[in-house]
């Protein structure tokens, strides 16, 4: 079962929830898809790390064949190519690797080369397979890294927890496409509500079963909770605003490994998700 954890925005506790869930239900697989700012590894401190480069294809020119016909430049929708006089130029940061320029070049002057944009690190931490995607600073899109994270082989019988990037753009969609269930983490503020509404729209768009964890709950108004009640969204858990959590979390400790009540809470959460997702009966028998 693949469970995606998302929040619309960083800082709401996405990593807290996914790390603790994966730790509580080990053996499991934890995928850190927040490839721009991966943090899960700081908690797991995985051992025996294996690294794998992630590359994308970009065009390169054979100047002896190029006759500056500009076919490629005119084709490129991303304006990643230019012809300065008769000199062919590539702005590789904005190339989307669609391959069109190489395919259409009448002189066959272009070919594709691999460019590294980041890497994937895989290690283990007390029964959790920790897989982290890293985008190199200065590179624009982490989507190829996320695709590679998902493509890597995982033990099928183990639940997979996907720590999604913040927001609701292309990179998030790639992270939830294969999810069986989505956990939305929400804060009790107006900002929190605004972001919750956005990811809620996203999971509805993708027709994913979903539920909400209310994080950092304090006494008083909780606009996010009101929204869940009004919309009939399952509230899976309410995590209090608690200085102990804050301290352990900011020092990179895993609650479920240190405090029995949190181990219990995240185990219960997993059980609840399996029940509401109807996973126990339906999907298990497909395997």
């Amino acid at each position: 079962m693949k469970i995606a954890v998302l929040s619309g925005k960083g800082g709401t506790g996405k990593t807290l929830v996914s790390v603790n869930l994966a730790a509580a239900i080990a053996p499991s697989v934890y995928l850190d898809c927040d490839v721009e700012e991966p943090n899960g590894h700081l908690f797991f401190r995985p051992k025996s790390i294996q690294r794998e480069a992630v590359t994308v294809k970009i065009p390169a020119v054979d100047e002896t064949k190029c006759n500056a016909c500009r076919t490629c430049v005119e084709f490129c929708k991303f304006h990643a190519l230019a012809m300065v006089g008769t000199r062919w130029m590539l702005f590789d940061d904005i190339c989307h690797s669609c391959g069109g320029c190489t395919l259409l070049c009448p002189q066959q002057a272009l070919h594709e080369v691999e460019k590294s944009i980041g890497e994937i690190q895989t290690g283990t931490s007390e029964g959790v397979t920790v897989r982290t995607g890293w985008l190199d600073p200065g590179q624009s899109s982490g989507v190829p890294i996320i695709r590679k994270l998902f493509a890597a082989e995982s033990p099928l019988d183990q639940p997979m927890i996907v720590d999604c990037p913040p927001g609701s753009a292309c990179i998030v969609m790639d992270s939830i496409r294969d999810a069986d269930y989505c956990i939305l983490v929400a804060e009790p503020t107006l900002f929190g509500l605004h972001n919750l509404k956005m990811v809620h729209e996203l999971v509805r768009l993708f027709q994913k079963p979903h539920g909400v964890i209310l994080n950092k709950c304090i006494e008083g108004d909780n606009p996010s909770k009101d929204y869940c009640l009004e919309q009939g969204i399952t509230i899976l858990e309410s995590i209090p605003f608690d200085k102990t959590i804050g301290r352990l979390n900011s020092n990179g400790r895993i609650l479920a490994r240190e405090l029995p009540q949190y181990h219990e809470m995240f185990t219960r959460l997993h059980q609840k998700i399996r029940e509401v997702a109807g996973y126990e009966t339906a999907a298990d028998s497909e395997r």
Partner: protein
Amino acid sequence: MKQLLILSGKGGTGKTTVASAFIKLSQARAYADCDVDAPNLHLVMQNLPVLDRTDYYGLPKAQIYTDQCIECDLCRQHCRFEAIHVNGTYQVDPFACEGCGVCAAVCPVRAIELKPATAGELMLYGDDRSVFSTAQLKMGSGTSGLLVTEVKKRLMAAAPSAELAIIDGSPGIGCPVIASISGVDLVLIVAEPSLSGISDLDRIVLTAAKFQTPVAVCINKADTNEGNAALIESFCEERGIPFTGRIPFDPMAVQAINTGRTIVDLDCPAGDAVREVFSKTLIQLGKGKSLTILSKKE
């Protein structure tokens, strides 16, 4: 015009809280929200009338005319984004399509066209004093970098004579962040005193360095982990990054935001601290060139 961009590597660190306070303190005539995925600044800066609301067209999306399609499969084979599926007929998944046009180019019977698609909405608010540019990306659309560029362009066009522009950035280090960094004079990074926050800070500093943009750092919720806050200060010292101060964790900040106010509208410790951060940041921003705003201290 001097452009100050506020970034954090991650959301939730208080970027918008700091940005909104800065806008209040500087009485900035020009400001923008470049977090087009999850814009929040309008929630605290909501009293300006709408000047303009425009649909934003990102890259087009492919459309297959099934009555002309001969099912040769060339489009599907050449699509690098796995955006073409066969479900009885050939169809384009609009979420996966990046609008590159390869499918249309290889189609032997011209059954594929690229069609404009709205990817979001651009909003410009303002009155005779100030201008606020923001946008909202449509759910599930890509191309947020292009939209960020558009938000900034509209801000500059609407307030060409403003001395200072304050830009609330987006989380991460990817395309929207790169688009927002381009052309700014200083990036103020709002860091959080956690191991995650330190890791994020490091990566955003590296990203700004790639684009040769000067950075300054402040810490929000600094007292939630004094040890990590000290680590961040020494991180800045080692790298020669100007440090502009610590803002304490303050429950009043949540209250301010929830009632649509900024932290300097309330009398609270976070508000006091952010004033200090503001004046130190302006000094960094004004280095080499004098800002009249510097002399306008209360």
